């Protein structure tokens, strides 16, 4: 069971009254323990999404779509109705769900391989149609689940199991900035890039997610929230090193900030 319960049980009722609860597991997360590696950004983003769903009171109106990749089992943790899509097809699946249930909130949750390699066509055409749902895009520049292969977003020079000497332009081309492409399409409404490497970044990402859900409610079109994340296991670093490396190397290529916001 969760650590939270252990702490609660350690206090008597009288003692508990002396404390104010400032931080707890959202009720929209299941009791299952995350399978993610220590320091991985997925757990934080899962939690943030579900905090937003809980705070907006939309648990019974939200349908999520899980990808293939490390977050393939996202539905084990998010206590909402969910579908698990084929690799790269989460956007197509979400597009259809939203068409059948236009009053509901729909999001897809996809990694870089899913969204920017095998699913590129679905990503671009979903954005181009202006389909009214949210894509949460986790970009950690690597295929984590399959053991650390090169991703479309892998940085030049970055070593992976399929670019053992570092990614070169000659053999693998350039890191694909797919969010920038999505932002250029008239069908997208809100495209923004964030991270979860420190508390300030976490707060900003949460705000962006709230904003995206608000726009979906207003039927504004496709929103894409990219999260520049880490992969301590795949990058072969400690969580702290990974977060430092992320700031130093990922941000210059994938700078945090809004790529597209509604004109005031």
């Amino acid at each position, binding site marked *: 069971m969760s650590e939270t319960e252990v702490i609660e049980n350690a206090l008597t009722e009288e003692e508990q009254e002396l404390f104010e609860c400032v931080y707890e597991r959202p009720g929209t997360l299941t009791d299952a323990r995350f399978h993610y590696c220590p320091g991985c950004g997925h757990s934080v983003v899962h939690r943030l999404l579900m905090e937003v769903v809980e705070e907006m009171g939309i648990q019974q109106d939200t349908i999520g779509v899980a990808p293939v990749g490390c977050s393939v089992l996202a539905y084990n943790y998010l206590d909402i109705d*969910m579908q698990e*899509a084929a690799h790269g097809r989460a956007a197509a699946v979400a597009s259809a*769900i939203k068409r059948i249930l236009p009053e509901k909130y729909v999001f897809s949750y996809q990694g870089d391989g899913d969204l920017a390699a095998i699913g590129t066509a*679905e990503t671009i*055409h979903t954005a181009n149609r202006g389909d009214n749902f949210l894509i949460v895009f986790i970009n950690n520049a690597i295929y984590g689940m399959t053991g650390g292969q090169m991703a479309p977003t892998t940085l030049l020079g970055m070593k992976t199991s399929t670019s053992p000497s570092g990614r070169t332009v000659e053999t693998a081309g350039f890191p694909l900035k797919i969010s920038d492409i999505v932002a250029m399409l008239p069908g997208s409404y809100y495209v923004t890039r964030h991270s979860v490497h420190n508390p300030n970044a976490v707060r900003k990402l949460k705000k962006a997610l709230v904003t995206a859900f608000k726009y979906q409610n207003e039927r504004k079109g496709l929103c894409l929230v990219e999260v520049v994340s880490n992969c301590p296991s795949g990058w072969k670093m400690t969580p702290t090193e990974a977060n430092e490396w992320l700031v130093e190397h990922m941000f210059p290529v994938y700078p945090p900030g809004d790529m597209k916001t509604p004109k005031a």
Partner: protein
Amino acid sequence: MGDVRLMKGNEALAEAAIRAGCQAYFGYPITPQSEILEYLSGEGRKRGMIVLQAESEVASINMVYGAAGAGARVMTTSSSPGISLMQEGLSYIASAELPCLVANINRGGPGLGTIQPSQGDYFQATKGGGHGDYHVIVLAPSSVQEMADFVFDGFDLADTYRNPAMILADGALGQMMEKVEFREYDPAEHVPPKPWATVGKPPTRERNIITSLQLASEDMEKVNLKLQEKYRTIEAREIRCETIMTEDAEVLLVAYGLSARIAQKAMQMARAEGIRAGLLRPITLWPYPYAAVRSLAEQVSGMLVVEMNAGQMVEDVRLGVEGRVPVSFYGRMGGIIPSPEEVLRELKQAIAKQTTKQVEVS
């Protein structure tokens, strides 16, 4: 008399989908079935259907997954190369037990092949098609009337068994015009409740999850065993075939779809020449009418299977016959439709060969 119209097979299929309460259609243009997407883009949308021309067949079938998972009655259609692209998605849909209807207006292959009619996708349709152990329920129309009828039947079968159903027709059936009468059909009386659909989790129930993933082998075997049990039920209940003039038949033609119409004409010509020929027309290609084949094998001296391919269904006929009588095959490929005269000639040759063989054996 219901609503009778003169229509192309593709249009009849599309019109039937509207009448069957198909809520959403996702498709991509490909000859010889683009009329379905065109008809639904006009008439379907006008009558409330969600119709989306997707970016590919891959996207189409995954949109079908999403819409079916959200509880909608949903369809996609394509022709051979496009159906090949959908196989991964169909495997997911079968595994996740989602009901949907798919139509393959078969054209000649392999590869880009030809836009002319073919039955070259029989193996793909009836043996699974994609990865893993699964089946789609396959209905083979042989007239424009059945192009419409099997839409209603296909949706009902899909919903009953939470399984994809497929109409396997060919380019000729899609393009030709015939009289078609639409049955009286109220979707409200046919579509069952779908408490498993992902429509948003109210506080009163556990969350619904649509997935085909079970990482633990024991769990995935359970999924497979459940599917196999369902397939056995479908095999026990849903086999359909037609027999024509088999009561006194000494030789049997076996053919489905368009080939069955040609074989029927050849059968009539043979009868006129005093050959007591009969016809077995499988209507469900999966589940396959093995029992009908087996029982006719006890009666006739030989069989000729006619297909517009290199010999695919003939393997199922031989499985049913189990060596009891000789089974010959005649097929044309590349989009060529065999003529009744060709089939009659082949039938006579087969009889001669089969008789010689029997003499040799005895």
